[in-house]
């Protein structure tokens, strides 16, 4: 019996070493990373924040080449839900940019390639809190769903990348359960471009998305984005990032509602380690009426200045002040201010983004 165990153990070791799929980080094979994002929100005025510091999200990721044709990525994320850290599957997809020239596809569960913020993990954002328009339209993070996505580099002297996607659509944004089968799958398109103006690199984009939920509620989204960077001496001297979104919601039996919102962020880097930025948010319901049919003034605005210390690509400390000003449908103006403290760190090799 002992000899059999020794033979089995040796076989396992030999197979692990000689297999083309042996998994050692750093050799071009499977890579692992852990990203921890911790946030504290404290009320400066009003009672909007939780007044505590806690891990907002812990991201465990494994990715790499599956074989000469495909890549794979899997990430688990723990969110703090009502005092408990709940681990759930975030992304799990197979992808390839080697099968068809100038084309990349992925299939599985992923953050939809729409807009700017949805494409990045929250701990990679240039600011701590979620912009008002993004929170209202998509939730606190990017839009997560399962389906297929195809990105095509359009043959042109300029850079144009068109992404088309279709996902299940059983849920959209925050959901407590698996959702239910929609009338139509969620489908979207995203056109990105890139150009340089001297030292300024600019990536503009436009997105469109439609969802027809199981209860008959139809939602159409249209967004434009613009990201600009000026790099100097190996770090980002100037960063500007803006998105504007339009959403039309038509319940099955009810009136159509239109919301528009935007955020705009500007950041200056003193050095590779220190930067300061400010973000402006705006959101309004343009079709809101009272029972007599009169239009009702309403809006939400926020201004969020911040300073950040970034010792390396793997750690970050950021302090922000989030001042929010709301005109409610009751005609009351509410002001709240929150101090936000953020610490993030990454262990291992986190995949990078192109821009």
């Amino acid at each position, binding site marked *: 019996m002992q000899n059999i165990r020794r033979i089995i153990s040796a076989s396992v070791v030999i197979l692990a070493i000689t297999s083309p799929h042996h998994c050692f980080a750093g050799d071009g094979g499977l890579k692992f990373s852990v990203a921890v994002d911790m946030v504290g929100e404290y009320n400066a005025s009003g009672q909007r924040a939780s007044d505590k510091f806690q891990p907002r999200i812990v991201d465990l990721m494994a990715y790499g080449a599956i074989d000469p044709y495909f890549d794979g990525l899997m990430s688990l994320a723990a*969110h*703090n*839900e*009502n*005092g408990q850290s709940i681990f759930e599957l975030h992304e799990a997809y197979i992808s390839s940019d080697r099968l068809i020239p100038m084309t990349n596809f992925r299939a599985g569960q992923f953050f939809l390639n729409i807009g700017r913020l949805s494409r990045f993990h929250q701990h990679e954002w240039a600011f701590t809190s979620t912009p008002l328009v993004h929170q*209202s339209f998509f939730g*606190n993070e990017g839009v997560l769903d399962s389906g297929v996505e195809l990105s095509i580099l359009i043959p042109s002297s300029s850079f144009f990348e068109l992404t088309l996607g279709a996902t299940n659509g059983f*849920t*959209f*944004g*925050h*959901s*407590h*359960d698996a*959702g*239910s089968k929609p009338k139509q799958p969620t489908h979207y398109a995203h056109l990105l471009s890139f150009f340089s103006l001297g030292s300024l690199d600019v990536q503009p984009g436009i997105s469109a998305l439609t969802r027809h*939920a*199981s*209860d*008959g*509620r139809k939602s159409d989204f249209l967004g434009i984005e613009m990201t600009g960077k000026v790099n100097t001496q190996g770090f980002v001297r100037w960063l500007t990032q803006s998105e504007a979104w339009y959403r039309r*919601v038509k*319940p*099955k*039996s*009810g*009136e159509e*509602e239109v*919301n528009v919102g935007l955020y705009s962020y500007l950041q200056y880097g003193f050095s590779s380690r220190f930067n300061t930025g400010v973000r402006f948010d705006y959101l309004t*319901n343009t079709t*809101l*009426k*009272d*029972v*007599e049919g009169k239009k*009702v003034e*309403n809006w939400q605005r926020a201004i969020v200045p911040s300073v950040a210390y970034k010792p390396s690509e793997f750690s970050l400390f950021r302090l922000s002040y989030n001042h929010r000003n709301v005109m*409610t*449908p*009751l*005609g009351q103006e509410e002001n709240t201010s929150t101090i936000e403290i953020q610490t993030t760190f990454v262990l291992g090799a986190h995949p990078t983004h192109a821009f």
Partner: protein
Amino acid sequence: MKLRKALYFLTLLTTISCGGSSSSNNDSGSLPLSYSVLSNTSLTQADSNVSGSGSLVFSSPLASVTGESHFTVTSSIEDGGSLKLVVYSDAQLSSGVELLISRSGSTATASVTVPGSTSSTDVSSQLSSVLNDVITGSFTLRVDMHNGEQPGHILVWVADKSATLGDASLSEELGNGAGTYWGLSLNQATVTDVSVGNAQHEDE
């Protein structure tokens, strides 16, 4: 003399008809939130309460059909009566999420109805402590409705509990309303206070 008597009688009549009663039956009122009366079976409106039977819709809408709000209603229900809170509905209080509290003798029940559903969901067991107050007198409903989630998420707290998910007496995802209005439907009930504001519980 006859003229004097007639004038005196007319003056008396005028005085009585313009008397100091604070009750009236109007098409609108203020609770403190201003509202419009949709149906008036036997509704009596005063400065700070409305009682009887009828339905009313509050004048100011909710911020968005995909939003979330908190509603507080303080009321009392007579034997055989009921109170229905309707949220995220159209201006006629249709296509909304409804929380119905009914009283019959020493029993009170609660149910939730959502648009598109053929039946109500009985939530009496979850709201037992509120229903005890319904039988004994005045009660306060504290309700979050998260209409942006799909299905919509309704939470109800009893008066002395903190607004956390763990302290909610009722937390159910049943369906969504289709509008931005809200109101009340009274049947032998009195409402003394209402308010609306930001959702008390934010899902993280």
